[in-house]
Structures are given as C-alpha cells and as structure tokens.
C-alpha cells in the first residue's frame, strides 16, 4: 500500500468513562506506534498499583489523571497506520473540562464520537456533538464501545444507533458511520472482531485510512489577515497567514475595512533555493505591496472579486465557557483572526443548553455550556465572512477580561441599514469619507457571499 504524505488530525470525544483513552491506548499499542519502554513503564506502574494493564495511562500522564482514572486535559499523540500518519487528540469527557475538550477539537480534521454500549447517549455525548457542529468538524464517525458487555448483540447495537442518529440530528450532525467495538480487547480497532461477524462495515483503522483532508478549492476567496508589519532591510513586509485562497505577485488586492486597493509587489522568502511563485492557503507568508497604503495588524487583505462583509454589527452563534454568563451591557473583546476590538451584546435572540438542547429564557444571559444566538456590536468596523462561506474568517472568540470565554461562528451581518446609520453617526476612525466607501462595498459583498 502506498503511504499518504499528509498527517490527519483526529479527535476522540464522548461522555466520561465511555473509554476514549483506552481506545487510543489500544490504537497506539496495536499499531506498534508507541515505544516499547513506554508500554512497559505503564505496565509496571499498573502492577505497582495492583491494577490490570490500563492503556489509558499512555495518554493520561498526569499523576492526578492516573490516580483518579480520568482525563483532565487534552493530549495529542502521533501514531501511524500502514497508510499514513495521524495525530490523535484525546479530549476529556468531564463537563468541568469542556474548555480543554474544545482546545483539543478545534483544529481536528475528523472526529470519532465514542458511546458506551451499556449507557447509550448521555449528556456529554450531546454536548460534544453540539461542539463539533459549532467547530465545523464535518467528518464524524460514531463508535459504540464495550460491545462485550452486551454479548456483542446486534439488536442492541441497532437500537443505540437509532437513538444516536436522533441525538445527532438535533445537534445538526450526521454521522458517516457507526462502528461496534470492544476497546479493552482490541476488537474492531486494528483487528477485526470474531464476536462481531454480523458487522459488515470497516474497523476503526480502516475508517481512518479512508478519511481525507477537506481542502478548500483553489479559487476560494483570498483572505490574508495582517499579523504584523516588519521593516527589515529597507523593505516593508506585510506578514500574516493566508487563511484562504492563493496569491501571486501582481494580484490586485483590497485592504479592509478601509477598502483601499493596491497590488502585490513581491512574495518574500528566506532560505529557499527558489523564491515562491504562488502562496497557498495555510502558509505563514510575507508580501510587499505596490503602493504605500495604510495598513496595520488586523487589516484584512482580500482579492477584489470576493470582498468580505464589513460592519460593526454581526449575528452569531456563541458557545459560552465563562464562569459568568454572557450578558448585555458588558464590554467584551472580540477576536476574529488578527482583528481585535471591544464589543457588546446588542440582542440575545435565543439561549439553549448544548447538552439537552432545552431552550431557556434570554433574561439571565448565556450561561457556561449554553449556546446563544446573539447580535454583537463591535466598537470598530470589522471585516469578516459568514462561517458557511469562509470558516477561517467566519469564527471568533470572545474575551472577558484576560480570559477566552466563548467561541462563535458568524451567521451574517446584522441589519445592514442600522449598521450604516451607526457608522455615519458614530464616525469611522479612518475619517468622514470612509463610510460611503464602506456602504458601497458592503452591498456588493453581500451579493457575493450569500
């Protein structure tokens, strides 16, 4: 089998004690991905503590995790199949550690949602499903673990699948497959189970090998948020990561929110045998521009054909993690890529529990682990996209004081008219002539993006 040259990131999520760390430990051991002395060390430690071999200890390295038998923080570990390399992300299942789960899952290419066959769908199963939806992880597979405790019974498996399909549908997710396993015995992980002969689908490892990284297309809109401006060797280098699209020298670009046009002059590089001809999505880049236009950290560079949405009001779904609820009349900081400004919640439209999806009153704001559908008002105009259009510039975090307290995805620009009124009344920091330009761009960009 020829090996694939890319590394896929997979997060394993699910309710506490449904066996995430055991599954991963087993994957590592059965594919011979973990050094023998590390397995021996765990074996020794388990014998010392009078326990059976605990594969989870390969990941749950902290003393507190091992003594309590839980995962506190997310870990990632590399492993490989015959086909390619993987980064496996173990995310904690406890409610108290949801922010660690989100840290683990936010950049995964695919997710495996683990369910204990005896317990079925539980609170964190639903919560994790909502979070995967919010994070935009599209490739989700469900793994039904501990089939040995149900005597490998097909009917019980089918029942769990039916329940789970309903729970996922509520969260807006569709699983691509359901896999019965017994992680403790390594059944249907790397080796096919002789107790589950009625199951015709793929093992976990074969399911992973069949996954692909979903790249955005070559002609996706150009999105280069400016991270910093350097003045080295008498050049003014605009540095940032190309979040979407491709760039070449000579390309016409627009700098937002000002709407200033110029062209890319050079693509900068160091220690390359040949300078780059084209920059692609995901690269940390540096460019110089034809004209000495004003820009700074936070400026969004785009191509002229696909402008972003620009405005101070945006609608979004926010997953809240803060100790105090997300409320109106309080200042937060919003960060969209490298843009950062003060903001407040203008309206809370709906609040629901990410676990059981029950809707609560909007009066008390958005408590931790609830999702709020909100309109935010930023102090400065922002340039962004709907998450469904360009995910990289369609998501943000909210800070309360020093802390990251929520993650959100943008559904759109709120009330176009009111946004314009607001800008005209309240001034744009760049000067009086700007709002007109803004408004013009704004209308066109809506057509392009929606």
């Amino acid at each position, binding site marked *: 089998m020829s090996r694939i040259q890319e590394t896929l990131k997979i997060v394993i999520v699910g309710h506490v004690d449904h066996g995430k760390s055991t599954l991963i430990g087993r994957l590592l051991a059965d594919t011979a991905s973990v050094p023998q002395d590390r397995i021996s060390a765990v074996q020794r430690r388990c014998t010392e503590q009078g326990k059976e071999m605990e594969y989870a200890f390969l990941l749950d390295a902290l003393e507190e995790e091992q003594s309590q038998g839980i995962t506190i*923080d997310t870990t990632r570990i590399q492993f490989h199949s015959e086909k390619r390399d993987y980064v496996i992300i173990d995310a904690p299942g406890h409610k108290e550690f949801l922010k660690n789960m989100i840290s683990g899952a936010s950049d995964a290419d695919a997710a495996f949602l683990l369910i204990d066959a005896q317990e079925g769908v539980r609170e964190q199963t639903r919560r994790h499903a909502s979070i995967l939806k919010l*994070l935009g992880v599209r490739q989700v597979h469900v793994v039904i673990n501990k089939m040995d405790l149900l005597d490998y019974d097909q009917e019980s498996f089918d029942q769990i699948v039916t329940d789970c399909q309903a729970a996922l549908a509520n969260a807006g997710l569709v699983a691509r497959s359901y896999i019965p396993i017994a992680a403790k015995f390594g059944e249907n992980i790397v080796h096919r189970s002789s107790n589950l002969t009625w199951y015709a689908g793929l093992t976990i490892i074969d399911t992973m090998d069949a996954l692909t990284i979903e790249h955005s297309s070559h002609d996706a809109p150009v999105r280069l948020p400016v991270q910093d401006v350097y003045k*080295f060797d008498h050049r003014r280098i605009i540095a940032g*990561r190309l979040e979407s699209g491709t760039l070449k020298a000579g390309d016409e670009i627009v700098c937002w929110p000002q709407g200033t046009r110029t062209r890319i002059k050079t693509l900068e590089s160091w*220690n390359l045998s040949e300078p780059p001809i084209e920059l692609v999505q995901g*690269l940390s880049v540096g460019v110089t521009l034809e004209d000495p236009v004003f820009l700074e950290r936070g400026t969004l560079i785009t191509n002229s054909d696909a402008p972003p949405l620009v405005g101070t009001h945006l609608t979004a779904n926010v997953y809240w*993690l803060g100790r105090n609820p997300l409320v109106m009349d309080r200042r937060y900081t919003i960060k969209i890529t490298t843009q950062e400004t003060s903001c407040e919640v203008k309206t809370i439209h709906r609040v629901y529990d990410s676990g059981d999806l029950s809707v609560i009153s909007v009066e008390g704001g958005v408590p931790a682990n609830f999702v709020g559908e909100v309109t935010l008002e930023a102090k400065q105009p922002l340039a962004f996209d709907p998450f469904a259009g360009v995910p990289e510039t369609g998501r943000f975090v909210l*800070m309360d004081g*020093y802390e*990251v307290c929520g993650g959100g995805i943008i559904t759109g620009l709120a009330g176009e008219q009111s946004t314009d009124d607001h800008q005209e009344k309240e001034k744009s920091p760049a000067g009086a002539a700007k709002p007109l330009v803004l408004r013009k761009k704004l209308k066109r960009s809506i057509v392009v993006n929606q």
Partner: protein
Amino acid sequence: MEHLERLESESIYIIREAYRKYKKIAMLWSIGKDSTVLLHLARKAFYGHCPIPLVHIDTTFKIPEMITYRDKIAQEWGLKLVVGKNEEALRDGMNPERGRLDCCTALKTEGLQQIMAKHEFQGLLMGIRRDEEGSRGKERYFSPRNKDFEWNFKEQPPELWNQFQTEFPAGTHVRVHPLLHWTELNVWQYILHENIPVIDLYFSKNGKRYRSLGCAPCTAPITSEAKNVEEIIEELKNTRETERSGRAQDQVDAYAMQKLRVRGYM
C-alpha cells in the same frame, strides 16, 4: 501543502504572534536540536533576522562541546546571547549527587528565574514538544506561569482556532511553545530539509550517539550507528525506545517531569 510546510507555517505564526504581543521576549536556546530548529524558524519568520535575544542557562555541567558550538553559531548568525547561571547555588556546591531533581530545580529552573527577573522578560519562547514526555503532552502554545514560576496545569486557558490567550495579570510570564505539535522525527526531517547545522554530539562515534542533550552527569548516549541526519531519520523510524531514555532526571520517579515542570522547569 507538505506536512513539514504545514508544521513550519503553524510555528512561524506562533513566533510572530509572540513577538508582536510581548515587548520583552527571549528565546531559550539549550543548544539541542529542538531549540536550534526554533531559532531557525525565527530567522525564517523574520527574513533572516533574529530580533529576539537568546537565553542559555549554563549549569556548568553541560557537555563541553555544547558551549563551543553555542559561541560559534552565535557569532556566525549575529545572535544576541544572554547566558544565565545560578552563581549562588554553584558557590554552594550544588551538583546532581545532592539529588537530581533538586539540582535541576536549582541550576536550571532557578537559573532561568533569575535571568527572567533581571531582564524583566514577559515572554519566553521554548522548543518543547508534546511527544517528548507525558506532562509536556498537556501543554498549551501560550502557557502562563505565575510569579513563583508555577504551572497551573489544572486551569489552562482554552486555545481554539489559533486564538491564544496572550495577556495575563501582572507578574505572570508566558511560555510560548511553537514546536509543541512537532515530533522528534519531524524535527530531524526538517533539519535535513532546511540543512540546519546541529551539534555533532547527535552523530554516532564509536557506536554511540546522544539522542537528547543535557548535563554531562545526567545524560547518557545511546547505542547507535547513525552518523548523519539521514541515518538518524532511518533509525527513528524503526526505534521503539523513547527519546529521553538517556535522561536520568526523568527516571527518578514516575511523575518526575510533572513535579519538575509544576515548579517551573522547561
């Protein structure tokens, strides 16, 4: 995009983010392969320049070749180098025989603490990786340490979508880990790809080579015939031994690294 290119880009983004956020920032250079790759990435991020000063903590027990290599590279690349030593502990005769973990804490952790205080550094770039050992597996890219240098691993900031918590209450300093997602194999593949000069202690002489570098009394070479970077890559693809198996302080007890790191160790 190739895998190494993706790793490189993610690291450069983090280095640039740290440089932008902290006026007083330094990069820890242990002379080992990881921090030398980190240094190379910084030069790449800033187009051949390294605007960030390097800090080397000299325990005086380092393998002598490391100091020679350090001074040679620093001069060739025009680096700003700050060397820290816990003079008081050394005068007092601290050495590994007084207990390896105590020695690491005094000469490395406290040595670092002194230099951070002296220069008032708010941020410190370091080349640690998740796959090195368990407690590092739990790290964040931007990882705060309180004024006593303690790591509160139970309450770490969330990191999502490359948004990092970069600001903290006064007295906190931030450890920035741009290589967190790399593996040992990735590091060697990158050294080959970029032709980065690493110290030759890593290459086999008389059937032995160092796989991880530290202080002479606590670091043992491994049995190996790998004489160059290509051969090391081949060796790593087939080994089932851990990288830090030659580092004595890790083996003091089951949670040795966690205990050291909670107190501020790298």
